[in-house]
């Protein structure tokens, strides 16, 4: 009986596999969705992409700061979790705090809403004057933010949504990049790179709001700019399983559609999971991500795995700017309304991947802040 089962199963497998065809793994340009191999892009697209590759101007304060009034104040930096970006940003906040004589407390939210709540309540209990929320959606801690507001604490939301979105209750401003516009830029790069014949695969995790905005920006731009000759699909990964599922789902997607020409993960930290999946699938798709972390800039500079990124200025600068926002709010002055600028970085303009190459106007942002504060 047992032998019969095994033999039958084996014969079934053999019959099924006889119908297997080898995966198309050579290159990414032979796409089933792009009928017109000689597509053309709208006028001006190349110029837009070229303009986005120029170095961004330094964003710095334009008015002074009463450091004597700030001395002895306390600001808490509550981050959604500890990663390279949030750590470098917190370093910037601490540096700025030291320069201004303000006490800084770093609190790791460990990807847990209960920890975010704990951090805010601790800040309230310990008499904080300001809070910087790093990539934490204010809505999930609305009750705690209401308590913070009642306690007179100025709360800045950072990297949560687009600058144009309404300021959420309990916060006084949203300091962020324009993720929708950055997504649109990523799409334009892919379209320009492919002469508008791109088959784009976006990798995102929709519970992370800014990633969802970027993904929407990519989709909208591809569909508006190249509705006939291009295609766009979105891979939505569960944020709790990014490490285990990204590679698996991406490999599957690339096997199902070997014609994908561009893979666009909306965050640089995904690259360790993206690169092996693209290689294992035998895909020649180009990869462009977002954020501009140093590990990705090194990859781009070395010509390995990653073709580009939409880079923000150094995270340390973001920390200083966030501190400046909160400091002014504590002193009762108007919010400067900073928006994080971004630059499209590829092998053409990455140089050696250093700050000097990628963000040349940000090599000494600390001095720019200090000089402005002293006015």
């Amino acid at each position, binding site marked *: *009986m047992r032998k019969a089962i095994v033999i039958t199963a084996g014969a079934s497998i053999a019959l099924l596999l006889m119908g*297997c065809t080898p*995966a198309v793994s050579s290159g990414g340009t032979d796409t089933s969705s792009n009928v017109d191999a000689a597509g053309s892009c709208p006028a001006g697209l190349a110029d837009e992409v070229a303009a986005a590759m120029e170095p961004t101007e330094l964003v710095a304060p334009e008015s002074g700061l009463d450091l004597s009034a700030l001395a002895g104040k306390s600001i808490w930096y509550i981050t959604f979790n*500890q990663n390279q970006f949030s750590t470098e940003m917190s370093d910037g906040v601490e540096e700025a705090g030291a320069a201004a004589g303000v006490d800084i407390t770093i609190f790791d939210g460990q990807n847990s809403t209960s920890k975010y709540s704990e951090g805010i309540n601790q800040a309230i209990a310990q008499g904080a004057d300001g809070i910087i929320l790093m990539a934490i959606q204010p809505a999930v801690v609305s009750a705690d933010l209401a308590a913070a507001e009642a306690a007179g604490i100025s709360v800045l939301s950072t990297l949560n949504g687009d600058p144009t979105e309404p300021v959420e209750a309990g916060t006084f401003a949203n300091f962020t990049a324009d993720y929708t516009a950055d997504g649109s830029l990523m799409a334009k790069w892919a379209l320009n790179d492919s002469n508008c014949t791109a088959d784009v695969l976006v990798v995102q995790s929709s519970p992370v709001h800014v990633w969802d905005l970027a993904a929407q920006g990519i989709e909208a731009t591809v569909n508006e700019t190249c509705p006939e000759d291009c295609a766009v699909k979105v891979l939505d990964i569960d944020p709790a399983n990014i490490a285990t599922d990204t590679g698996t789902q991406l490999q*599957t997607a690339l096997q199902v559609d070997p014609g994908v020409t561009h893979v666009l993960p909306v965050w640089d930290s995904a*690259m360790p999971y993206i690169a092996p999946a693209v*290689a294992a699938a035998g895909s020649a798709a180009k990869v462009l991500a977002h954020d501009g972390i*140093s*590990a990705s800039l090194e990859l781009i500079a070395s010509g390995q795995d990653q073709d580009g990124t939409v880079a923000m200025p150094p995270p340390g600068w973001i920390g200083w700017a966030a501190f400046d926002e909160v400091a002014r709010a504590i002193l009762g002055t108007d919010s400067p309304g900073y928006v994080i600028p971004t630059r499209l970085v590829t092998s053409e303009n990455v140089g050696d991947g250093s700050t000097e190459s990628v963000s040349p106007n940000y090599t000494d942002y600390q001095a720019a802040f200090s000089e402005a504060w002293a006015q």
Partner: protein
Amino acid sequence: MTATITGPNRTDPPREARTRKRFSGPHVLQKYALLGILLLLLGTFMVIIPAFRSWGLITSMINSQSIILLLALIATIVLRTGGFDLSISQTMVASAALCIVLTKAGLPLVVAIGCSILLGAVVGVVNAFLIVRIGVDSFIVTLGSFSALAGAAYFITDSSIVAGAPVELVNAVRSQLLGIPLVTWYAWALAVILWFVYQRTPVGRYMVFIGGNPDAARLAGIQVQRVRFGAYLVSALLSSLMGLVFLGYFGAVDPGVGSQYLLQPLAAAFLGTTAIVVGRFNAVGTVVALYLLIVGITGLQVLGAQTWVTNVFYGLALMIAVTASKLAGRKRRIAG
């Protein structure tokens, strides 16, 4: 003086009856049900989804689970002795972090690898000492190790993603043999080795006895403490080797990913107890279980299911399979 000659115990079932029972329909069905479901699911998807008839998709499904499979197989070692080792994934990440940081600091790769393995040895000895010698619950100790190693990984990498793994490691993992990456071959090799140890060696049987009843095993003359100590040590050493595989596969280390590799390998190991050697943690069953899950999830993904659907599938498959195995085992015991 009278000699008493005793014949066979008339209460023992005859050899033929035991053999008939072992190959009886219900028994075979229970052993191979999961494998049958896997083949049925694969066949069904091949019929309804053209992409599933691609050898590339089949291999990509298999390859994508190699890291999880390796971790799941390692997990079965301690599970088989009745304990838990929750520190496997973090040992892997910390080991990978140590290796890449040391190589980027200029140390020879051999030295970095040695340090990573030494880390695994230290973790294994500490776990084993606290659990086996002192008697602290394995869940608590290894959860503590997990947490400490997570912090260590952040410390080693300065809370950064560290890219630029040595090319020798990358080649040792990503190079292909017969069109399949070496990482997958490593997973299959470990499955074969563990199958042999579990099914063909005394220590494999001792592990089961200890896992079932350590006191009875001790009374039977089995060196319970030695076997358990060895299990935790081997588990940690293999986990540190896994760190090198992990590093070679991804080419970089994100210190925060250890927690994401905690549950899936354990789930696969538990699901594997419903196949091949039902009721026991076993290597082949783990392989079958993991591949069943990935076939199901991939099929759903290709059909366009949302992410939450695959999570539901994963959870339901685990609950149904383990429950069915429990019920089948109970029925078998009643039937005697």
